[in-house]
């Protein structure tokens, strides 16, 4: 079939405009800003770059989380992250499927793409493989470090004694090597703004 110039420009511009528009809308060409930390990902997530390329944005983990702690990132998220699952511990934290009877952590079990690797619901496996982030304390805000005594975060910690210990006046200390970043401490902190928050590992 002979293609004349007019036809070539017409068809070519239709394809180019569509794909260009898609690239713009999905914001995949936009780099992540260096100042914003990478979002908190569900348990078993691949490293951030691999996660963004592997996750198919089907929202199954969002559906599966029994604590409803995952949500899909908004359309305005940069660097092609729109639609990927993230977690805001202040709204709802990862409960490590503590109240469930499943063999695996539920989000990892439903993931079809391998972006979330299977994690068995065993204490050893959880402490070893779950790496959502690490909790960080702001000592200027924490009541226990400012002439009060609180201890809410320590009581919420599912790995209390390992990931978090408390000293006098219930002053919390986070042990980064054991902390899985579930965010229960951030969820439970009674201060506004919260004095303890989970920071992603990346």
């Amino acid at each position, binding site marked *: 079939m002979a293609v004349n110039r007019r036809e070539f420009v017409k068809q070519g511009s239709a394809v180019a405009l569509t794909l260009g528009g898609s690239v713009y*809308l999905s914001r995949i060409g936009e780099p992540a800003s260096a100042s914003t930390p990478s979002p908190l990902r569900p348990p078993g997530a691949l490293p951030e770059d691999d996660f963004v390329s592997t996750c198919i944005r089907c929202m199954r983990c969002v559906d599966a989380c029994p604590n409803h702690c995952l949500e899909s990132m908004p359309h305005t998220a940069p660097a092609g992250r729109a639609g990927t699952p993230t977690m805001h511990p202040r709204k709802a934290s990862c409960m490590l499927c503590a109240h469930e009877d499943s063999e695996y952590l539920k989000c990892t079990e439903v993931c079809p793409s391998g972006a979330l690797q299977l994690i068995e619901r065993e204490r050893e496996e959880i402490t070893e493989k779950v790496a959502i982030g690490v909790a960080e304390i702001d000592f200027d805000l924490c009541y226990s470090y400012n002439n009060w005594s609180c201890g809410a975060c320590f009581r919420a910690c599912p790995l209390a004694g390992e990931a978090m210990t408390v000293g006098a006046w219930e002053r919390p200390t986070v042990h980064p090597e054991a902390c899985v970043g579930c965010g229960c401490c951030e969820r439970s902190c009674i201060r506004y703004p919260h004095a303890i928050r989970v920071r992603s590992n990346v």
Partner: protein
Amino acid sequence: MILQIVRRLVQASVLLVTVSVALLCLYAHYRAARVIDDDQLMAGLRGEVVTKMVHPYVDRLADPQAFLDGNKGTLWSMRLMGVDIADPLAAAEMAAASKRIHWPLIASAAIPIVITLLFGRVFCSWLCPGYVLFELTGKLRRLLRLAEIRPGEVVFSHRNKYIGLFVGLALAALFSAPLFALIYPPVVISRALHAWVFGTSLVGIFVVLGVIVAFELFVSPRWWCRTMCPGGAVYGLIGWIRPVRIRLNADRCTGCRDCIPVCEEGINPITQSMSIECDNCGVCIRHCPDEALYYTISLPKPRGYRPTPRKIAALVVVFSMFVSVENAGAHHILGLPHYSYKENYPQRPTLEYPAHTGPYDVLLTSYPGSPVPGEAANLAFYIKNRETGSVYSQPITVRILQTSTFGDNTVVQPAMTREPFDNEYKFHVTFPLEAEYVIELSMPVEGRVEVIPFLMIAGQPTATGSVVAAGAGGFVLLFVVARAVQKKKARRRANAVNPNAVLVTT
């Protein structure tokens, strides 16, 4: 005719399944939080639907939890009654973006692939919710034509979608992030339905649908499905060897060409029903006055597909990749309090609003996160020096203005000055109306006064822009309908024989 009714029912049931799966997931969340019996939390439409329409039926099942675990996801990848189904385009795109093959995903694309191998592009014409929307757009074009506003009839090449598919996959590989996942209409629609059920807002993604609908309405009929859809391209390529096809009985065809303008894919059913563009929708069969077009099951001509041992082996491999999902009962190991749904638990979600000035990081925290008009809201400012790590301790001043679309902002809370308490500044304020406000913070920084505005929305005020857009859209539609009626009447008058005129001439 019956087939078209069945097709509509199937399309409707896909939408129903998408909404039901989302509703089941919502119910699963409430169930996991053990709040189904909590009248206060289950108030409102969403709670009513979950408690009255979902809970009684699911709870009656032998193993409700297993049933709930078996239904998750959107049309991009869904677990339906325990079976994983994924769109082949999702599998292809993920392989391109991550440059590796994840076998479970390929396996879950097997059901659509097998169906397409047998029936062709039926996922387009029988299942895709985007196709429903664009069919309706096609119907709207008729209204435009009736009103004698001629919509554009630009025809693009069917080949564009294959080029778009491959270039799109290449772009996904280049950027290492999926491109189609956020613009592919069925996924956009199913994600929007999901968000609607869950009560979250996902306005941004409607841009895609709006652009396509507008383009199809005014420029090129059925542009997306015919010439641009990457999913259609994938299904077309897979459905190349389909045994179920539409055939033409050349002896009965009178050459009236009634089937050509009705074809959803813009092909000529008389000559091109064997092409990969045909999606087996059967609209041409319904419109054929001579019953010359019919569905048939026939293996393709010798030139086409011939099952060789290698191809059969490939099919066996695809089938053997099905791995059933089993849930084994496991032991209970961790003991945690469960808070999430109990909003009265002291740590209600808050709104955090970061800002920067000079060396200082300013964090405004509002409790509750979205203030209720007329009720007290707590604002806390926490200001910290980024470089030294020390907390700011000078007095700060705050005033609140209500924004106005036309004219100046009005002050609703005059300036208040506060000293820090426990390293932060606390303000108790009331936002009087459902509106947008600006919280204006003035703080001395290095000898001068910095003013930082924070936008705050109380309640759910209606944005002026969307009101104007909705009003204008409604007005345009009214105009088109009125014009259509007027033109139709005029045509009828012109066609009718005028009795007076007849009398005069004879």
